[in-house]
Structures are given as structure tokens and as C-alpha cells.
């Protein structure tokens, strides 16, 4: 884990008025899809750190998925800690990958595009919001088509607000007691104020192995492990 000061180099207006950002990755920051940073702005009296997810990971820079705190301005000095948690595990045998953002934007799952494109995978993105500048290899589909995804894909990566979790299986068209049909992981968006420092319990998630902390046992979980 790295603790460092970084400059918020720019704010980026993404689709639908969402604002992301860009930072230079500090040395040894091994950012991976689904992992996150906790950050706070040194020039503002903030009570809680903000979780920052990448929307694109390059060698030396990270694009930050929206939203960012409205008070953060370009040039702001951020104190960051991370990467934290457990991220996505794209299986080496995958041929077809389905990405899906349920009732949220897809930026947090976009870092999977680079390894998927590099591996020559077929890629389908199920989203209510189309990010600008997607590679032509990505087929964009409506969430109405999501129940088709488990039969098509070898691997699914989803972004799911925790309030939507109880509906997840029905949104995928899978009965509660039936297997999904493909390997699937969900990035569960829950409040994660302590980032694993305190086991504060706010982000607790019920799984088949008992209560887990989204901040350190997730935020990415195997969907079959979730008690939903």
C-alpha cells in the first residue's frame, strides 16, 4: 500500500455531466481494476476520505471515475492511500466478457477494457449511460438485454450499488436458487469511510461465508458468494 500526495491535474467532464479527474500515479502504486484509493483534499476541512476508483489505468497516470467531491478543484493537493480492497479477477480462459453497470455509470468497470482488448476478447457493455470515446470493439447494449448476458459471456463484471443488490439476480434473469451460468463478479458500491482501518461496520455485506467488509474483503465479490 502506498500513501502519497498527488496533484489533481484536471477535472474531466464525462457523460451526463459527471465529473472525473486525472492524477499522476505515484511510484509503486499498483492500481488494478476494482481496487480503490481513499483520498482527501489537503486544502479543505473534510471529515471523511473519498473513495476513488480508476476509470483508466495507464503506466504513469490514472483517470479517476466520477463523481468527485464538488469542492475539489484542478491543482488541488490530494492525500491518497491505497490501492485498497480486492478487485476483479479476469480469468485467463475468458473469450467473451460482459460488463454491466446497474443503475449507475460504467466508469468503475472501464479499466477492464484494456486487458480485455489486449486479450482479443469479445466485449459487451450493458449500461444506462454510454461513455464517450469507447473503442469500436465494444458492443454497447441496453440493460434490458442483461438477462441474455450470462448465457453469452464466460465472465461478467458488474458495478452494483448496494441498494440494488437484492434485485441483482432477478435483473440478471436468474432465479434465487439457480447458478448464474458464468463466472461473475460485482463491484459493490457501499460507503467505505474507514478503508479497513477500523472495521467500522458501515460497509458490512452479508455473504454465504458470513459478514464481510466491502472496504477490505471487497469491493469486488464473486456474485455466487453473496447472500442475496
Amino acid at each position, binding site marked *: 500500500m502506498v500513501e502519497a500526495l498527488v496533484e489533481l491535474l484536471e477535472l474531466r467532464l464525462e457523460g451526463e455531466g459527471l465529473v472525473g479527474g486525472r492524477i499522476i500515479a505515484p511510484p509503486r502504486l499498483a492500481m488494478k481494476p476494482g481496487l480503490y484509493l*481513499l483520498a*482527501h483534499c489537503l486544502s479543505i*476541512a*473534510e*471529515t*471523511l*476520505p473519498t473513495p476513488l476508483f480508476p476509470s483508466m489505468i495507464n503506466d504513469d497516470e490514472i483517470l479517476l471515475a466520477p463523481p468527485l467531491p464538488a469542492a475539489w478543484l484542478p491543482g488541488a493537493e490530494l*492525500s491518497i492511500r491505497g490501492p485498497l480492497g480486492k478487485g476483479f479477477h479476469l480469468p485467463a480462459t475468458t473469450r467473451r466478457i460482459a460488463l454491466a453497470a446497474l443503475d449507475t455509470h460504467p466508469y468503475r468497470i472501464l479499466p477492464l477494457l484494456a486487458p480485455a482488448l489486449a486479450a482479443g476478447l469479445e466485449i459487451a457493455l450493458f449500461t444506462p449511460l454510454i461513455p464517450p470515446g469507447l473503442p469500436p470493439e465494444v458492443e454497447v447494449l441496453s440493460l434490458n438485454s442483461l438477462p441474455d448476458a450470462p448465457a453469452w459471456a464466460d465472465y461478467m463484471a458488474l458495478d452494483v450499488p448496494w*441498494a440494488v443488490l437484492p434485485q441483482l439476480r432477478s435483473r440478471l434473469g436468474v432465479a434465487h436458487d439457480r447458478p448464474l451460468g458464468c463466472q461473475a463478479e460485482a463491484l459493490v458500491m457501499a*460507503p467505505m*469511510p*474507514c*478503508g479497513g*482501518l*477500523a*472495521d*467500522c*461496520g*458501515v460497509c*458490512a455485506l452479508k455473504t454465504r461465508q458470513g*459478514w464481510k467488509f466491502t472496504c477490505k474483503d471487497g469491493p469486488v465479490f464473486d456474485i455466487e458468494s453473496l447472500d442475496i
Partner: protein
Amino acid sequence: MRLDLDLSTPWMNAAGAAGFTPPERWLWPEPAGAWVTNPLSLSPRSPAENRNVISFPGGALLHSGLPNPGLSAVLRRNAAAWARSPLPAWVHIFGRTPEEIHQIVLRLEGVEGVAAFELGISEELAGKDALAWVEAASGELPLVVNLSMERAAEDWLDDLSRLGASAICLRGPRGALAGADGRLVSGRLYGQALLPQVFAALRQAQRHHLPVIVGAGVYKFEDGKMLLNAGAWGIQLDMVLWL
């Protein structure tokens, strides 16, 4: 014979801010004199159904339901770390009955590294009822009575020293805010916005003739020093340790 409450420095974490193991990360200008465990109950407790954290200008409301794996599991997983820690552990305990509190105290008194108990007094308890909890927690180790700062003037606190309590710790008050779905969430308040109330509560609590630990509102070292100059015996840090 009861041991004395002792601190090498006045700084420590607040219950719930560092987990069940001594904090490895301590970004504060002066070292800690003790560390306080997460709230611990006799039996396991699940998280609250409507757990949440909601920010507001100058602070945040946190509602977790005080989830914890219960005394036996906490000891099994953490007792070795407590024994190894150079910092004394204050175990924050709470319970549904005085009997539960007494059982926890009996189990923990001989555990290496445990230097004191911090008894969490719930909002519903006051007067003779609260004193029964304090009596149940009284044993060989020093006892800190932890309660919301808005209760600092309550008369029953005058009896704490008679029952052997070593100090009073003032935590943040409760409040309520609407979550993203519009439903009200009740929980504990944290943050710098509490600081003016903390100073007022400190003055009220000092009338009970016990050392007073301030456990809310301190985000800046200078603010903590001012509270110490105003007579606080110790300062507990909460969400600032997560930044």
C-alpha cells in the same frame, strides 16, 4: 485493589476508530498513550439494517449498529496482539444488562495487555439504571465511563467516583439525517463542527470531580491542545484517523 488509570501521553483513538487491534497507522503529531478497542459485546452483534454514513458540512453521521463478533471471537483473534502491543489496551464494552457487563469484565480482567475498561452508556440509560451498569463494570481495572457529551451535566454522574470510576469520556451526540433514499437515519455525529459543544461539555463534566477525556470534535492538533489547556485529561481521535 484497583489499579490506577495511567497515560504516557493524552492522545488515543476513540472506540470504533481503530478496530480490535492496536492501530498500525497513527498520523498525529504526538504519539498515542493508549488505544481503545471497537465496542465489544458479550455475544456477536450483526450490523444495523440501515447502516450508513452521511456527510454534512463540518461532520458526518455514522450508523453501524456496533457490529462485533462477540467477546469469545474477539479474544481468540486478537488477544495475542493485545499482549504484544507496547500500548495499553482500553477495552470498550457495552451490554444489554449489568450481568452481561459483569461477565465481560470477569473474562477480560486477566487478559494480558488490557489496562482499562471503557463502559459505553447508551442513550436510554440514566440515573440509578446507568449506575447499575457502572457498578457491574467495576473491578480490578480502571473504569472510564463513556457517554454522549450532551449528558455531561446529568446529576447521576456525581456518583461515579463513589462507584470507583476513574474518568468520564465524552463522545459525540446522536443525530438524524436523510439518506440517499430520503429516509431518516439516526446515528452518532462526528467532526469538527462539534468542537464548540465539546468545550461546553468539558466544562460541565469537570463538575463531577473526575478526569475528563474528550472523545469528539478534534481534527486539529491545536484544537486538542486547547482542550487539554482547558482541563481535558485525554483526547480521543475518531474519523480524523481515517484521513
